[in-house]
């Protein structure tokens, strides 16, 4: 099977699966770093979707968007990790169920 | 010039914020000088404007444009017309007086070992308040108007909330929520105008074009918009059922806050009605004329009654405000030039007379620290000059001919009588009740034998007002008699624009009536009959 023959539905299902793993990860994990990784996973699933559609519509704009997302994700990762470190310094934990400053 | 007078106080705030904060026992003179300088610059600039103001011009004049945005429709330009001119000048005059009084008051209190606190914030709040009120009156774009309108809330909330009386928190929250709740309707209305405007051009400018296109809106939309605007305004005035924030805010506010609140802030509501509600929605406001007249009359009588029932001096004056604002509502909805001129005149009058009353109450409160009427008595003997000035304020408040209060009340009542005699008959009883509560207050506080509480105070500090305090009241007294004898000074400024607004409204009504039912035609004839044209 050559790559151009992979049906769009495969791509969709794959992205959906990766995205769901990401969501479940964000919702269930306690460790803030794992949550962070899950977010990255979700971002990458979207990237995959972009690429898939770009190929389908024969349009480069989707692939362009991927570069943006990757650049932003890198920046976000940097800021995010810095935040994580700062959180760890303040609360001495990375367990988000322990950090409940916003409880109403 | 116009812009200068608006932003001068704001510049002073910048300077004040750069100064180091110091905590001393005595009030900081430098801060007062800066604030005074700014407000006096602003006042002088407004006098220069007054010199250039043309009485014949019925449109915005002296326009100063700073920033035009076709993208957002928010054009920053300032201008005055007959409707805003008088209020603008009043504001510019009132603030220096209020600021100077605050300093004198701080001095007197520091003599009694009361430390001033958070002075920098205090003066800044006053100055921001000045900018925002001046901005409201000079704005000629709906969004700009709204920005200043909301900006006013911040310093006012600070003034009441930080330097207020015992119950200040409750009063502040009530004041804030009431007015902010009203503002929500206002911004909703403003945005909705844009939304429904099929004109094609994106602009929030208050122009005749806007008024014309507003009248092509669907009927029910006009109704909604009318209510959106007027709810915000009648809360600010405040009219009868939504007046309950006023007594609390007035009583708890520091004296200068009460003076400004009564002097100009309440006028923003009535100004809004005159500037927006009436010319924008002539048909709808015609429909609700009787309703609002009724609200006005209830306000007059109810406010007067409640004032009579008060035992707290400041609350009494606050309720008298409700009564006076009732007259203004009445006049505004009379629909003829006599009533409208009277309403406009009464706006200024109320600013002067009630402003002076609050000032006077504050002056004596600085010494006695009590507002209970029962603690007073025989003050005329202890402080004769003060008693005379208070008498003048009282007379202006009850509308004695020769003072400004009479001209306003008289014009309103006669204008309203031409539209709706029955309502006026009830309104006239306000003339009686006005005398009842004010003279009751005067008798209790000033006549009779000096009360024990006052004699005790007298041992500590002289009850006679100082020269500085007397000087502050002089401009008020001059305005009271000047406007009472030469009301043309003020009435001539509004004549052209009111005439324009009335004829514009009538044109719109005539145009609308063509093709509509015959009833509406009859109504229009009634307007003409009621003496506008003859």
């Amino acid at each position: 099977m050559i790559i151009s023959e992979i049906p769009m539905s495969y791509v969709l299902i794959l992205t959906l699966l990766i995205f769901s793993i990401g969501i479940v990860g964000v919702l269930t994990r306690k460790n803030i770093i794992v949550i962070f990784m899950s977010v990255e996973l979700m971002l990458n699933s979207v990237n995959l979707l972009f690429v898939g559609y770009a190929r389908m519509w024969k349009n480069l704009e989707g692939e362009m968007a991927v570069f943006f997302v990757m650049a932003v994700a890198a920046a976000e990762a940097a800021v995010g990790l810095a935040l994580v470190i700062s959180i760890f310094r303040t609360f001495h934990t990375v367990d988000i169920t322990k950090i409940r400053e916003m409880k109403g | 010039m116009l812009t200068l007078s608006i932003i001068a106080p704001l510049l002073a705030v910048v300077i004040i914020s750069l100064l180091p904060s110091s905590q001393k026992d005595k009030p900081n003179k430098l801060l007062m000088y800066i604030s005074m300088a700014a407000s006096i610059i602003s006042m002088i600039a407004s006098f220069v404007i007054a010199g250039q103001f043309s009485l014949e011009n019925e449109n915005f004049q002296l326009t100063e444009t700073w920033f035009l945005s076709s993208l957002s429709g928010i054009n920053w330009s300032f201008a005055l017309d007959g409707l805003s001119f008088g209020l603008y000048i009043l504001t510019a005059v009132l603030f220096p007086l209020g600021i100077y009084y605050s300093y004198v008051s701080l001095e007197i209190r520091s003599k009694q070992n009361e430390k001033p606190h958070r002075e920098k914030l205090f003066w800044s709040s006053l100055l921001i308040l000045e900018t925002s009120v001046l901005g409201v009156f000079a704005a000629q774009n709906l969004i700009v108007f709204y920005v200043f309108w909301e900006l006013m809330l911040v310093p006012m909330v600070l003034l009441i909330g930080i330097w207020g009386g015992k119950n200040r928190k409750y009063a502040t929250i009530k004041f804030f929520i009431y007015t902010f709740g009203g503002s929500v309707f206002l911004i909703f209305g403003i945005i909705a105008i844009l939304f429904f405007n099929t004109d094609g051009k994106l602009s929030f400018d208050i122009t005749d074009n806007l008024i014309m296109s507003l009248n092509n809106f669907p009927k029910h939309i006009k109704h909604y918009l009318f209510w959106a605007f007027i709810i915000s305004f009648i809360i600010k005035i405040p009219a009868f059922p939504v007046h309950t924030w006023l007594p609390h805010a007035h009583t708890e506010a520091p004296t200068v806050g009460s003076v400004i609140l009564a002097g100009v802030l309440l006028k923003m509501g009535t100004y809004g009605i005159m500037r927006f509600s009436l010319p924008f929605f002539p048909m709808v406001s015609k429909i609700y004329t009787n309703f609002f007249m009724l609200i006005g009359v209830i306000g007059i009588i109810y406010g007067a009654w409640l004032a009579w029932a008060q035992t707290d001096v400041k609350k009494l004056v606050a309720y008298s405000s409700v009564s006076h604002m009732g007259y203004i509502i009445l006049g505004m909805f009379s629909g003829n030039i006599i009533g409208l001129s009277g309403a406009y005149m009464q706006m200024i009058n109320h600013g002067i007379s009630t402003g002076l009353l609050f000032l006077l109450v504050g002056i004596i409160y600085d010494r006695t620290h009590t507002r209970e009427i029962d603690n007073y008595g025989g003050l005329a003997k202890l402080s004769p000059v003060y008693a005379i000035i208070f008498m003048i304020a009282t007379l202006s408040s009850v509308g004695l001919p020769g003072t400004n209060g009479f001209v306003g009340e008289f014009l309103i009542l006669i204008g309203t009588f031409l539209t709706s005699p029955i309502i006026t008959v009830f309104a006239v009883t306000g003339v009686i009740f006005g005398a009842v509560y004010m003279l009751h207050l005067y008798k209790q506080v000033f006549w009779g034998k000096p009360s024990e509480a006052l004699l005790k105070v007298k041992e500590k500090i002289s009850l006679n007002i100082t020269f500085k305090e007397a000087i502050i009241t002089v401009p008020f007294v001059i305005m009271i008699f000047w406007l009472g004898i030469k009301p043309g000074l003020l009435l001539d400024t509004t004549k052209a624009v009111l005439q324009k607004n009335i004829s514009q409204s009538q044109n719109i009504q005539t145009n609308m009536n063509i093709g509509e039912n015959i009833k509406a035609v009859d109504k229009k004839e009634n307007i003409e009959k009621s003496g506008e044209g003859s």
Partner: protein
Amino acid sequence: MSEALLITAIWLPFIGFLFNGLFSLKKEPISQKAVILFGVGSVLLSFIIFVILTISENAIIMSKTGLGAHFFTWIDVGHLKSDFAYKLDGLSVFMAWIVTGIGMLIHIYSTGYMEEEKPHFARFFAYLNLFIFAMLHLVLGDSLPLLFLGWEGVGLCSYLLIGFDYDKDFAAEAGKKAFITNRIGDAGFLIGMFLLFQHTGTLNYDIMNKFFSENSLDTSLLNLIAICLFIGAMGKSAQFPLYVWLPDAMAGPTPVSALIHAATMVTAGVFMIARLAPVFLGAPEASTFIAFVGGFTALLSALIALTQTDIKKVLAYSTVSQLGYMFMAMGVGAYGAGLFHLMTHAFFKALLFLGSGAVIIALHHEQDMRRMGGLYKHIKLVAILFWIAAIAISGIPGLSGFFSKDMILEMAFTYKYGGSILFLMGFLTAILTSFYIFRLIFLTFHTSGDAVKKMKEAIHHHHDEHGHGHGHHETLHPLRWNILGPLVILGVLSVFGGYVGLPHVITHQTPGIVQYFDKVLAVPPTELSKSWHNHIDGGLAYSLMFGSILVAFIGLLFAWFRYEKQNNIPSEDSKKRSFFVNLSFNKFFVDEIYEIFLLKPIKKLAVFSYKVIDDKIIDAFVDALGKNTLKIGSVFRKMQTGITAHYAFYIAAGTLLLTVIIYGGIK
């Protein structure tokens, strides 16, 4: 030139007011001479200018429009226009003479009366000058708003002067009462003014007169206007039911009672009716109502005056009663007669008040007649002048009151609607008047009592209470020329003032003063005066006249018998009074009735509105709105667990929900 003079004459007292007002602010009382110079000088000068104007501009003044003078624009909005413009015509020149003339006399008198009140001397003259200024606006203004300016202005002065001794509670209360009662009237007056403006389109007299000469309004409308305007007059001129303030107003210094509450201000209502004669003439029902209110007031207050023991209270009720006569005259359309009585009353009532002031000051501020008596021996001149005034008011022939009162009774008798009832009321009042005024004279100046001795006793009593008095008042206070002079002039006027209106039966022509007013009032000669001859034939007129002379003497004799012969000094013990005397002594409990049925319920309603409606209903509703918002918020607050995962779950669930909705919508 004459315009400028007229304006000067009107504004001169204002200058006096300004100076004296400023003087009064000084801590150290200024020299009384300076106060007198400005206070009395300005009014004197004003009077002189009026005299000069009357002589030099006689022809213009007597014309229909009179001498006009425009000072400056006041109100000018739409078609409402009212200026500070004056109109000196036959009617207003008549009033201006009375106001400045008697005003001047009373100013002079006050320099003596107020001599001892050093710290308040300047303030007193400031108020008096302001009063003259306002009163001149009332009578000389050329439009109703200007009349109203004067109308409320004199009310203010009255308020300030009644409360002149503001540290006395009763004075403060009386001042407030006067102002508020007047305001009730003013509210009616305003409505009348609005109606006139609505239907004639103007408030200027000349334009209005022109309107009425060309058009006519509906009679019922005119009736309504007339009643509304009369309500104003009820307040200002103390007619039933708004008369209650005038007796209390006696708390003010006596010259004030003479000037404001007898001679000038209280007659403003009468003047107003004459000024707006075209309105009242077109309103027959309202006019009849006015006549009956006048008659009733005259009778009621004369009944109250019978038993009062305060010398000034008697005179106050007498004033109310005499004003009732005037309104009776105005009501029956005899404007000339009403204004004639206004003039003679100004003379003799001012004399009575000033005379009583002289008595009061001689006795060092004693006002109770029960503690007087025998004063004739000590102050003969005052006593004689008092007798003159009493003869004048009681209607004994030869003196001024006789002519004017008799004219009113005659006119009332011939009135179409209920004339005989009106006459009867007036006739009864005449008996009572004669009785109470001679009762006053006998109790004060005669009887066996000795005021001087009583005074000494009272002072000893006073001393026991306070330990120290204000000096020893062993003798009467001396009365100097500035007190006696004005009294003598008023005495002369009270004697001869009536001869301008000699009755028709004697001269066989319309009385001079009636001719004068027929000429100057803005109406065609009224039906009544036109048919002067038809109504009253000689015999009837004579019998009416003799009837009223007879009752005057009956009153005199009865008073003499009861007080001089029987020496029946009224008792201070209320139990000894009979039911009717008690009723009269307590003023028919009118004040109490007002208190219970009007004042208290309204005050209660006010307090109720505040405590219940405003606080418990409106404000509580607003507060409840806030509280409930908080409550609802506290329910939703529980959703904020602080666990990030929960928030993420809400977001995810929300997104899913939206997707489903939108997707479902498309399908």
